[in-house]
């Protein structure tokens, strides 16, 4: 059994890496797209087999309760995004916004990105985690600059500078953690392995840990898009191709937040270190309020949903900052729901931008009338992301708000004001987009197949609204206790 687990784990890394190399050689777009979808499906199957049999972790790679559902989520969303990207990029090629020459390494970079994210999640070694996230950042920088328009270049350049700065701070934090672990566990690989660190965390030097957590929170926080460090996120989403926005919003933010949570586990294991809660609560609320206010002035549809990602990352960080079994459970659930819903929204937005030929919100009107599938898909997505039942985000918001109000009424009020602000703005935009009279020229809607990924995601979120599978709940509860 263990062999099957080990092979599945290695497959998770080997398949994307191999596909990336193969795709570098392949020049034709159509075959590239098919291979891309095939590789993503293969890694999804590998991830699912991990559910059944869990391999023994070694010093480099390890699968435990925390990252197993994130791996599955990552590969599922990557697979659906690859299906969406096939039709999206084909359309872009047809309209000439992208030339085959630009797309030369698109699929190779896509698979490399999957490899980097799987590596980051599987990594048992904090250094390896850092390298994986650095690799993911570099690849997404190139992807964002794909359109080579002036705005895309400027967005990529900004993303590169801020991303690298964040990564550098994170590296410094990682080194500090190693230095704190080294006297207790000894030199070499064990001093950087999660399971070892977690066992000995109590004996680490608290001052070093505190300093390390500050650098790590700022470093990986930049990648997670928390407010003072969020500047790259809206431009990267708006200028990059939509599949990459979906990957960025759905997965990369989660991976960065996963890294922060790993280190939060260490901090909560060490009693003398300062509690990480208030720091994360502060950043979370700041992101929530800032994004709430920034919605009202947005003119570009993808930038609008980028700010919605910042808002939800704020809510998730707030939930983990509050701590306690209920809030942690809600945070983990919210991470899953957010990535599924946000990627579904970006699928819809991708098609809308192509169909209406523009990303300006003021010119996109009456979607439910002109393209019923797309229009109602967007309405369902926005209703889900706004936290309304029957979708899953409602359950996590329900738990966060009610458990917070019982413990810290003041914080809960700020949270509720932030939620209401965000809700009001998002709805205002949705009403403009989905309803009313449409007077701009409308190209024919997408084929149902390409609308399939969006529908699949919304269906999953809909089911999660009132029923969660048993094993998933036990994993969440176990990790919630671990997170402290």
């Amino acid at each position: 059994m263990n062999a099957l687990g080990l092979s599945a784990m290695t497959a998770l890394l080997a398949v994307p890496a191999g596909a990336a190399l193969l795709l570098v050689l392949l020049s034709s777009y159509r075959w590239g797209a098919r291979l891309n979808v095939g590789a993503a499906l293969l890694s999804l199957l590998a991830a699912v087999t991990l559910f059944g049999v869990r391999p023994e972790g070694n010093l480099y790679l390890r699968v435990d309760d925390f990252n197993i559902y994130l791996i599955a989520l990552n590969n599922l969303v990557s697979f659906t995004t690859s299906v969406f990207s096939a039709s999206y990029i084909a359309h872009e090629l047809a309209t000439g916004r992208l030339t085959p020459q630009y797309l030369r390494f698109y699929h190779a970079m896509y698979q490399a990105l999957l490899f980097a994210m799987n590596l980051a999640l599987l990594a048992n070694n904090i250094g390896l985690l850092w390298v994986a996230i650095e690799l993911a950042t570099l690849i997404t920088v190139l992807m964002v600059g794909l359109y080579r328009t002036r705005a895309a270049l400027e967005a990529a350049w900004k993303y590169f500078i801020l991303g690298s700065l964040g990564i550098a701070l994170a590296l410094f934090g990682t080194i500090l953690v190693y230095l704190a672990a080294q006297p207790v566990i000894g030199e070499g690989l064990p001093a950087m392995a999660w399971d070892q660190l977690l066992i000995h965390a109590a004996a680490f030097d608290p001052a070093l840990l505190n300093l390390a957590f500050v650098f790590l929170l700022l470093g990986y926080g930049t990648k997670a898009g928390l407010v003072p460090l969020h500047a790259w996120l809206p431009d990267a989403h708006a200028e990059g191709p939509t599949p990459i926005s979906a990957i960025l919003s759905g997965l990369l933010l989660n991976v960065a937040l996963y890294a922060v949570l790993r280190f939060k586990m260490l901090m909560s294991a060490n009693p003398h270190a300062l509690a990480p809660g208030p720091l994360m609560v502060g950043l979370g609320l700041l992101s929530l309020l800032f994004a709430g206010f920034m919605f009202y002035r947005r003119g570009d549809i993808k930038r609008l949903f980028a700010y919605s990602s910042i808002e939800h990352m704020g809510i998730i960080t707030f939930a983990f900052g509050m701590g306690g079994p209920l809030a942690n459970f809600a945070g983990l659930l919210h991470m899953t729901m957010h990535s599924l819903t946000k990627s579904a929204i970006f699928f819809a937005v991708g098609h809308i931008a192509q169909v209406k030929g523009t990303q300006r919100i003021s010119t996109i009107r009456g979607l439910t009338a002109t393209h019923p599938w797309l229009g109602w898909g967007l309405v369902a997505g926005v209703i889900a992301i706004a936290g309304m039942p029957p979708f899953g985000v409602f359950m996590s918001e329900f738990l966060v708000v009610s458990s917070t109000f019982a413990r810290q009424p003041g914080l809960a009020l700020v949270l509720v004001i932030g939620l209401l602000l965000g809700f009001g703005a998002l709805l205002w935009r949705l009403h403009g987009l989905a309803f009313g009279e449409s007077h701009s020229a409308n190209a024919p809607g997408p084929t149902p197949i390409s609308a399939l990924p969006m529908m699949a995601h919304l269906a999953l979120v809909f089911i999660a609204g009132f029923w969660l599978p048993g094993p998933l709940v036990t994993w969440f509860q176990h990790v919630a206790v671990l997170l402290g």
Partner: protein
Amino acid sequence: MPFLFSLSMALLAVGVYAMTAARRAGCSRRVYSATLALSTVVLSAALAHLLTAPAPATLTLPIGLPWLGAHFRLDALSAFFLIVVNLGAAVASLFALGYGQHEQAPERVLPFYPAFLAGMNLVVLADDAFTFLFSWEFMSLSSWALVMAHHRESANVRAGYLYLVMACFGTLALLLAFGLLAGPQGGYDFATIRAGQTSPGLAAVVLLLALLGAGSKAGLVPLHVWLPLAHPAAPSHVSALMSGVMTKVAVYGFIRIVFDLLGEPVAWWWGGLVLALGGISAVLGVLYALMQHDLKRLLAYHTVENIGIIFIGLGLALTFQANQMYASAALALTAALFHVLNHSLFKSLLFLGTGAVLTATGERDMERLGGLIHPMPWTALAFLIGAAAISALPPLNGFVSEWLTFQAILLTPELPQWLLKFLAPAVGALLALSAALAAACFVKAFGITFLGRPRSPAAAQARETDRYSLSALFILAALCLLAGILPGLVVDGLAPVVGLLNGGAQLTAQHSQPWLTLAPVTEVKSSYNGLLVLLFMALSGVLAAVLIHRLASAAARRGPAWDCGFPDASPMTQYTAGSFAQPIRRVFGSVVFQARERVTMPPPGDGRPAKLEVKMRDPVWDAGYAPIAAAVIAVSTRFNHLQYLTIRRYLSLVFGALVLLLLGMALWR
């Protein structure tokens, strides 16, 4: 109990079916007959439960919060509100069988209508915080979709937006209230909440949050702004449900949290607050209604008045319970619950009547209607009964609940608190004032719409509506009359509900009274017999008619109306909605709405018509909502500059954050 839950699921199934087959011809008839059948079955089940009053039935399902499951419970309170919900639903579906044919975009109405009904049923049945709020929001969501059915007009889009934002505000308030009730460990099911003890301070905060949450959905005054925009925007049978029934589900939410979950009574001055809010809502609601000339908006604003009357009853009940006067509290609760039933009856009747007028003439604006009593006599008769009932005229049901509320107010001198000694008579005066103004409002509504001469060609060629609509209208009219004549039966029906909410204290049984009289406290104190009043009036009216026609003359001939010398007075010379309300606007409006009239007369010899402009300000919108919206926009513009900084400035943001944290670290030691 599983039976009722499966029926709600059946409603959802009908919704899903409608989603797929909305375009096909017979679909609307099939959907509405399905909802009619289902709601009648649920109605009869709930009625049976209320009358036999067995022990509460519960049901737990593995859905909802993973470790809690979804709890459902049917006790006396839920049974009564199930009756109110499904009675309205059945009649609206019956009406929609005829009315639904004229819907241009059935695919936007049919799927959401059964979902809306299912949502309301589930709210009333829910027995834990998650399921309650889940179905509450689901109800708001489906009704929002119905409000957006005619999304072509931009006014409807704005109404839909305002509605959903206020719904979210209400839900978040309720969520905070449940957070307090459940405590940090998260004991969300109502059984543990009832068992747990909430400290007086927390109970007060929970009541305020429940008031905000349920008040915003029901339409209490400061939170009512969305109601007159959203309710008219939906198709008529849905507006009838939203005004008549959904506001009652909001009242149910308030009663469930405050009277059932909070256990021991709240401090007395909280009852005073509810009382004051109820009074203000009553008067402001009817004054707003008087100023409208759109029939559906008038009815929607009038819902605010009736909700005010209900909350006056609830406020009285709270004050009595706070002072352990449980007998008086029973009377106040009975008055409030009776008015809940009454309002759902006559408000649905009036909205459905407006729907009939809308299909016949395509007009909602009273300035372009008139003289509809000739082409649509039956609709006019039903609307007249509804108007008389809502104006609290004796033989009908509106008067009985108003009478009970007055009797409850007359019991307030025993309250020891001084503030209440001044508040109770003031609220009594407000209630009396709002009752009189309601009569004026519905004389205007009925008179301008149905009587006089048609003011537009559309009103002239109106035709009577179809059989289904008329049968729905007359069922409601008959129920209004029955509830007015046999109030004793309804009060006895409400007894178990009042007992549940009032720690067992109920009103004396009414069926023992002779001649079916209603004597809530004692025979001597006050009694009212609707049946005899109706009999006397019918007797004396018929007697007079027969005697005069037999003894005196029965001759009658038609002639021109008195025109004071002007040859052919055009229909425009008739009184319009605006002119009818002009005296009351001058008396009340100039104070409340800063109503200013400006008449511009053309110089003599100039053929142009004179012009009368009336400018009014909505005090609640200008004082409450406009400043908030302006503040949000102002802050967001200031924040917006952060989107256009240079990369260097973003770096300095990160740098600043790092230095700040490091300083904090260094100094924190």
